[in-house]
């Protein structure tokens, strides 16, 4: 990104495209030349520009310890994401970033970690998972509770066994609507709590998903005894500039682009859940 003008995208090459699910794909983009100087932090995002079509904020979904490729996992839902979905290896994408706040990974050393994700919400959390596993011995229990609409919507499932087996992560998965072949849990993500081992008073939680899911996840954690300040959520709003100038992403007093997207729940609880805020 042009440091003197943060509104100018930098064209970068798409090295690989991974088809994750029927509507979700990952763009693996070559890093900025001087990327070493400003590695992204888990939770941060880039603005991705599809030539002539437009720009959207997309979180990093790859390993922050392996900056040779920038991963962005995207659901094909709108005009710009459809254009991004049409990109092939060798095509160019415009990139501005990285922007925004980060999951408190290092700050959470010594604690149990509960990660709760809904649908594509697992993508912005995956860099945090990689960072946690990179120094696995620094943390107590690590829990991942993951919910999606259907079995076909589950992301990154191939990695779950590694996370379980090699790193002892308690990975629990549920879906809203199951087909005949599904033998796992059915129901909302909060139904996964019973039987999960973690010490709520010494837990840092990281949540990303639809607001309604986050609301119930926060209630559940607070009922268990986890303090609001140790619960972190990501917020999403319409965003144009990513640097606090366009005004679109305001959520109460916060600019989600620069004060967020990751917030401690204690920071935003007065505004969370107010209709049309």
């Amino acid at each position, binding site marked *: 990104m*042009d440091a*003197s*003008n*943060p*509104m*100018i*995208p*930098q*064209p970068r090459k798409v090295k690989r495209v991974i088809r994750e699910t029927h509507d979700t794909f990952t763009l693996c983009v070559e890093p900025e030349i001087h990327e070493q100087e400003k590695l992204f932090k888990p939770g941060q995002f880039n603005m991705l*520009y599809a*030539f*002539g*079509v*437009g*720009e959207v904020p997309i979180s990093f979904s790859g390993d922050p310890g392996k900056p040779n490729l920038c991963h962005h996992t995207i659901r094909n*839902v709108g005009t710009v994401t459809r254009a991004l979905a049409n990109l092939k290896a*060798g*095509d*160019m994408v*415009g990139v501005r970033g990285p922007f925004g706040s980060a999951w408190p990974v290092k700050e959470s050393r010594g604690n149990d970690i509960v990660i709760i994700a809904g649908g594509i919400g697992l993508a912005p959390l995956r860099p945090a998972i990689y960072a946690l596993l990179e120094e696995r011995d620094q943390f107590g229990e690590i829990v991942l509770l993951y919910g999606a609409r259907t079995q076909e919507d589950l992301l990154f499932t191939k990695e779950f066994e590694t996370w379980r087996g090699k790193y002892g992560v308690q990975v629990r998965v549920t879906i809203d609507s199951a087909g005949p072949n599904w033998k796992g849990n059915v129901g909302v993500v909060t139904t996964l709590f019973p039987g999960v081992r973690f010490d709520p008073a010494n837990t840092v939680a990281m949540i990303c998903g639809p607001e309604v899911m986050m609301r119930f996840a926060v209630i559940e954690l607070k009922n268990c005894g986890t303090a609001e300040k140790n619960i972190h959520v990501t917020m*999403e*709003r*319409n965003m*144009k*500039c990513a*640097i*606090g*100038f*366009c*005004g*679109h992403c*305001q959520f*109460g*007093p916060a*600019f989600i682009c*620069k004060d967020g997207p990751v917030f401690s729940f204690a920071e935003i609880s*007065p505004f969370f859940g*107010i*209709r*049309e*805020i």
Partner: protein
Amino acid sequence: MSEQVVLERNDLNGLFTVLQGQGYTVIGPTLQDGAIVYDELTSDKDLPEGWTDEQDGGIYRLKKRSDKALFGYVVGPYTWKRFLDPPEKRLWQAKREGNDFRIIPENEPPPKYAFLGVRSCEIHALAIQDRVFLEGDYRNTSYEKRREAALIIGVQCVQAGGTCFCVSVNTGPRAESGFDLALTEILEEDRHYFVVETGTDQGAKIIDGLKVQPAKETEVAEADNRISHAAKNMGRKLNTEGVRDLLVQNHDHARWDEVANRCLSCANCTMVCPTCFCSTVEDVTDITGEHAERWQKQDSCFTMDFSYLHGGSVRASTRSQYRQWLTHKLATWIDQFDESGCTGCGRCITWCPVAIDLTEEVEAIRKSSSLESVVQSDKER
């Protein structure tokens, strides 16, 4: 402030000559389409001599004055932001080159503007926009270049408009700083002159080229008098006591429904507000698809597109749009920038087609707030 000087009315055009000689484009008040707006001026003849304005909620009328005052009115529908952060500007162009594409940034040299007739509330508005665009982690480089190049020639208000309330928000009527020069216009029976204050070295250099006399004590006192007169005749007042908590905590107040019944969500208030800074971007291509551009355009929190997310608008109701605008302007702006976003200029009241008055809205919420803390702070006052 260095000592003040006096410039006679008949020598005012010298100011234009000096500014033009220094390469400035002079922007100032002029008559257009039945209003006093800001546009390019070539000489003092372009100023609205002998005109004044009558303003109230939803009302703006020009009237002839009985004298030949050049600045005998208050603020109109335009603000200086249209020159510093234009309502439409191209951010960059892009050219496809095979599989690749190249971004071509805008590299136009910034225009060199001399703003003539900037009022105290507007000088505060410039400072508020500076905070938004220049004092965070990122800088709005286009705004920065225009702002740095701009010369600010203030005019002290000697009369107040029907919707003015700068006194109650501490932004006027006297401009104390933030200008290169500031003029106070004085009309007497047989004399018409300006008392001129110098705010910067740049301003002093302009003075050097003008035909001026040192101001006498009586002339300075007369200028002060007239500014005090404006201070005593404010059309409105806004009670800002505890207003941050008042609005934030009353997000469920019935008054929001009441105001939504009147509000047309036309966005006029955001267009005329000197501090509203929201923008959107539009990506366009030519017919070949080889050439793309991104344009930044003024936007408003009163549109449905503004909060569009995942197939719907977060703030779809007029109630929530008005609440967002007012709460941001008077309350959450304080969280964001340590100051209010309101300068008391009254434009949003004047230019509201249905005369919604934010000072009234705040009072209505204050009077019927069910929140203990807010009622308490009101009582203590």
